[in-house]
């Protein structure tokens, strides 16, 4: 299904978690499910979004979250660069458990809320959240230099933040060309 965002031409692939059960316990169960999710990632192109729909899932334990969400997030930058992983329709309980699980692993995921807005869930630092929000608001690509001015910090600090967000799979880095014809990196986030 095409994403409505006009500037970020992405395809969404949906993964309904509830088909595996309402109560999802243990690492072993997640190990059984992960290949199905990986198959979707294998089909996805750079720039595509994979949405885990957690609707109707009442609970998953930390081991399940670590194996399914943690392992997938860790594989993003190396195995599936440029793809975004989003989770939506989390119940309060599942959301809290996922947040704690990600926090304990030092990971972050994009959560899409009921009104379609994205927020970060997991081990989120305020500055990362701000940087992500600024990039997302651009609804297109942005350079480190542009962000430097917007965030009011120096270029080294901006690059550090961008590297972190890219490694977490929250921001996509692409090669672009400046107006002067020089090669430069441009960054995009889901808005």
């Amino acid at each position, binding site marked *: 299904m095409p994403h409505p965002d006009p500037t970020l031409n992405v395809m969404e692939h949906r993964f309904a978690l509830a088909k595996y059960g309402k*109560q999802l*316990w*243990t*690492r*072993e*169960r997640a190990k059984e499910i992960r290949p199905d999710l990986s198959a979707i990632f294998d089909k996805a192109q750079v720039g595509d979004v994979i949405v885990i729909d957690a609707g109707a899932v*009442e*609970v998953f*334990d*930390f*081991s399940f979250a*670590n*194996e399914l969400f*943690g*392992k997938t997030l*860790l594989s993003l930058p190396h195995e599936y660069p440029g793809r975004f992983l989003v989770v939506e329709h989390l119940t*309060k*309980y599942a959301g809290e*458990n996922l947040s*704690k*699980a990600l926090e*304990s*692993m*030092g*990971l972050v995921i994009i959560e899409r809320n009921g009104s379609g807005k994205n927020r970060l869930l997991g081990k989120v630092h305020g500055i990362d959240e701000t940087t992500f929000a600024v990039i997302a608001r651009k609804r297109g690509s942005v350079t480190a230099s542009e962000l430097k001015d917007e965030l009011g910090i120096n270029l080294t600090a901006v690059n550090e933040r961008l590297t972190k967000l890219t490694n977490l799979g929250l921001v996509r880095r692409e090669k672009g060309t400046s107006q002067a014809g020089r090669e430069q990196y441009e960054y995009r986030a889901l808005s």
Partner: protein
Amino acid sequence: MTTASSENEGAPPAPTITKLDSVSFDALLGTNNPFTQGDLSFDLRGVRLITASALTQLAAAILALNQRGQSPTVLIDDLSVRSYLVRAGFLEVVGQVTNIEPPLATSWFYEARHGMNPMLIELSKVETGNELSNLLDRIVETLRSRLKYRKYDAFDVATAVSETAQNSFDHNRGMYGLIAMQVYGKGARRFLEIGVADCGDGMLATLKRNPKYSLLISDLDAIREACKLGVSEHEDQTRGTGLYHLLEIAFEHGGSVQIRSGGGKARYRMDKRMGWVFGVPSVPGVQVALTLPSKGRG
């Protein structure tokens, strides 16, 4: 979570134990430890009550002796305890590998077995994640229907059990976990006790498989380390969070946790967010006792 050392609990005087729980189990081993002495018996004469955690500990100890080719004897004289053990699933799990003295008459055994299950979750042996999943669903259902737990409180209990029990077969090849659950007390003092035990390699041997922890030398150090975030046999960012989350859940609910491994034991009291460690008579495996104030509305 901080821990403090305490006096050795391992060699107490030999009291008459009337209530066998996760604490007095060490006193029982203090009088006779079948793992270090020739006497292969657990003398429960005088015992009038066995709690859920002690039940799992006793079963794990019996199964550990059986792995060594030994068949221990359990001495029980109290009729109600004998009946309780049958109905609590104890003989289903260890009946083939232990001798009950005096022997249970077959006819009596079947009669007692058809009596009412005295526990919320009888002694259960789980060997795989799928078996554990089914048991966790049952725990949620039991807490919701019999104790009128709110859904999220029941989920917390099941999550705590899950994170503890998975270690039994995640870190031991061909191993199983033993689980039992019961509620005790009345009114505001009512609490839920859950025992999870195995007779595997124990935390020290398990952690030492990871070169990062190869210098650990004692069971107490291993328990302390294992409760820290990210500490695991496996060098994997998604591992080493189970016991940490167990303690967090216990803290949120104002409960307590006892973790026993080999010859060490740590008790965490969540009202102080503090743990105490003790030397105890050595038995194989890991045994965890979790107590949580009952959240039931019934």
